Each structure stands twice: as structure tokens, then as C-alpha cells.
């Protein structure tokens, strides 16, 4: 273990992202490279049948600060002052309501199917 394992784990994440990006370039898939990389890493973990400690640690560290990673794109709001000033009501209300409706519809649809599944009353 030690520092090399951490660098190794980070390299694994970047390598899967790279392969994902290349596959997207070749195939013209509508998905982004990192998402393909995620699917490939999942398959690799299945195939290996075990999760290396260092990979788990690095992933948990990155994911526990996921919200930090969205700040730079969010600050881009300063580029859209004019449009936001003009259409802020339509944008904010549509965005907020649509998000809440989506949460509700997704949850209720999934819950309804779970209730119909035989022998899976294990939620709660």
C-alpha cells in the first residue's frame, strides 16, 4: 500500500476515461467519454471480482467532494446577465418546477413497479 497505490488508482480512473473518450470518438456514440469509462470500469470490476482498497479510497474521496467540481461551470452565470435579467422568471420557475416534477415522477414510477414485483417488499 502507500502512496504508489493512490497514484495507481488515480491513473486507473484517468485511463478508463481516456478509453471512453476514444471509443466515443470512434463510434460517434451520443454519450460522453467519462460515462462510457464508468461503464467499462464497472465491467472490469465485475470481471476482476474484487475492489482494490486504493481505488475505493480515491473514489470515495473524489465523490465526497463532487459538489466542489461544479463550481467553476456554475460561475459561468456571469456571462448570461442580460438573458437572465430578461427571462429570469420563466427560467427559474420552469427549472425549479420541472426538477421537482421529475423527482416525483421518477420516484413514483419506480416505486409502483417495485410494489408489483413478486417477493420484493423489502423496502422501508
Amino acid at each position: 500500500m502507500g502512496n504508489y497505490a493512490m497514484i495507481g488508482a488515480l491513473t486507473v480512473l484517468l485511463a478508463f476515461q481516456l478509453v471512453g473518450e476514444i471509443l466515443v470518438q470512434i463510434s460517434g456514440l451520443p454519450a460522453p467519454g467519462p460515462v462510457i469509462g464508468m461503464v467499462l470500469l464497472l465491467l472490469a470490476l465485475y470481471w476482476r471480482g474484487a475492489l482494490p482498497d486504493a481505488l475505493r479510497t480515491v473514489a470515495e474521496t473524489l465523490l465526497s467532494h463532487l459538489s466542489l467540481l461544479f463550481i467553476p461551470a456554475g460561475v459561468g452565470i456571469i456571462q448570461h446577465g442580460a438573458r437572465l435579467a430578461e427571462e429570469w422568471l420563466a427560467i427559474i420557475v420552469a427549472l425549479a418546477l420541472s426538477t421537482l416534477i421529475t423527482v416525483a415522477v421518477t420516484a413514483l414510477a419506480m416505486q409502483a413497479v417495485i410494489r408489483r414485483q413478486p417477493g420484493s417488499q423489502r423496502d422501508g
Partner: protein
Amino acid sequence: MDKIGGIWVYLTASPLLWLMLTLVVYLAGQWLFRRSGGRALFNPVALAIALLAALLLLTGTPYSTYFAGAQFIHFLLGPATVALAIPLYQHRNRVRQLLLPISVGLLAGSITAILSAIGLAWLLGGSSRTLLSLAPKSVTTPVAMGIAEKIGGLPSLTAVMVILTGVVGAVAAPALLGWLRIWDEAVQGLAIGVAAHGIGTARALQISGMAGAFAGMAIGLNALLTALLAPLIVQWLHLTPNGLP
């Protein structure tokens, strides 16, 4: 005084200052969040964005200068997305059990997100450019920008809407799910992930590892599905950047 002014001018134009300030503001937001007993109203991302935006406007610093520093943080979105495979692998048994409910919830949520965003903004008098930029708002930033470009929206405006969507979802979704009496953490996670992508997932990870795993899975699946559905729905509505026919 002149010397201090000179240093300030130098710093505001350098990537180092803005990279560091992004981290400082984030840490301060986290500290406030914990001090307030985890009150979701203090969403740390929203607070950080508001503070940094105000600072840039006050100092007259262009976004490109800010981003030259902040891009090092932005870059980590890629490996973090790949890392979502880990919670997914850890909860693989539950995922396999729920394959059908996941598919139905995802499809219903993805279509609802696109149609309700376009429909509500249209009802409220939004321009068609705005409607097109809003359509992929529930998808993770890089994919949403790609979709917006394809259907005739403004990618950089979409990025902002994606973040705002995430903040709304992170703040309001847990209460809404409680009100709907949804207690299954797998269902909570998927719903938050479909509607509010990575920022929602950050919140779902605070609920539990299980909720986080399902939210993370929803980011990837909803990105794929919206990339396929949004262009079809926009075509079906005859929506173009210049307006409805």
C-alpha cells in the same frame, strides 16, 4: 500604495488566485453547512457560486480569467464520473434485483424532465433559444452542453441551468420524497440522480451509500437517454432556435 495595486492587478489576472479562492469559498461553505446543522437551505455550491460571481463582477474580472485557474477543478469531473462505477459495484446485488423498476423510473423521469422544462418555460413566455437551452437541464454538465449545441441551445447557458437544477434538486428533493412517503433509499437515489445529476448525487451520498450509488447510476443512464430523446422530442415539437412554426 502603487505597489499593492500592482500586486493586485497581477493576482487577479493569474490562475492561482482564482483556483485558491474557489477552494477557500467551497471550504467556507462546507463549514457553514456543518455549523448550521446540515441545513439544506445553505446549499454550499449555490453559496460558493454566488460569492465568486459577485467577486468577479466587483473586480471586473472576465470569466475566462477565472476559468484559467478553476479549470483544474473542472477537469476532475471526468475522473469523478468514472469513479461512480465504484458505489455501483458495491451495490451490484440491489441493482440487479431492481433492473425493471430502474428502467421504468429512468424512462419516465427522462421524458418528464425534457417535456416539463420546455413546456413550463414556453407557458411563461421564454424565448425558443431559452427553451432549447433548458431541455437537457437534468443531465450532467458536459453532456448537457453537447446536447444543447446539437439541438440549437446555448451550451454555456445550459451549463448554468444544469447547475441551478442540481441546486434545486439537492435542496428540495429530500423533503419532497419524504412528503411522497418514498423511504426506499434506492428509489430516493435514482429520483435525485435523474432530476439533479451530480449535485443531487452529492446530496444523495449524504443520505446513504446506497442512495448515492443509485443517484450516480442515474447520472450516466439519464445522460445516455436524454442524448437520444432530446433531439427527437425537439423535432416532434418542431422547435427551432428561431421559434415555433
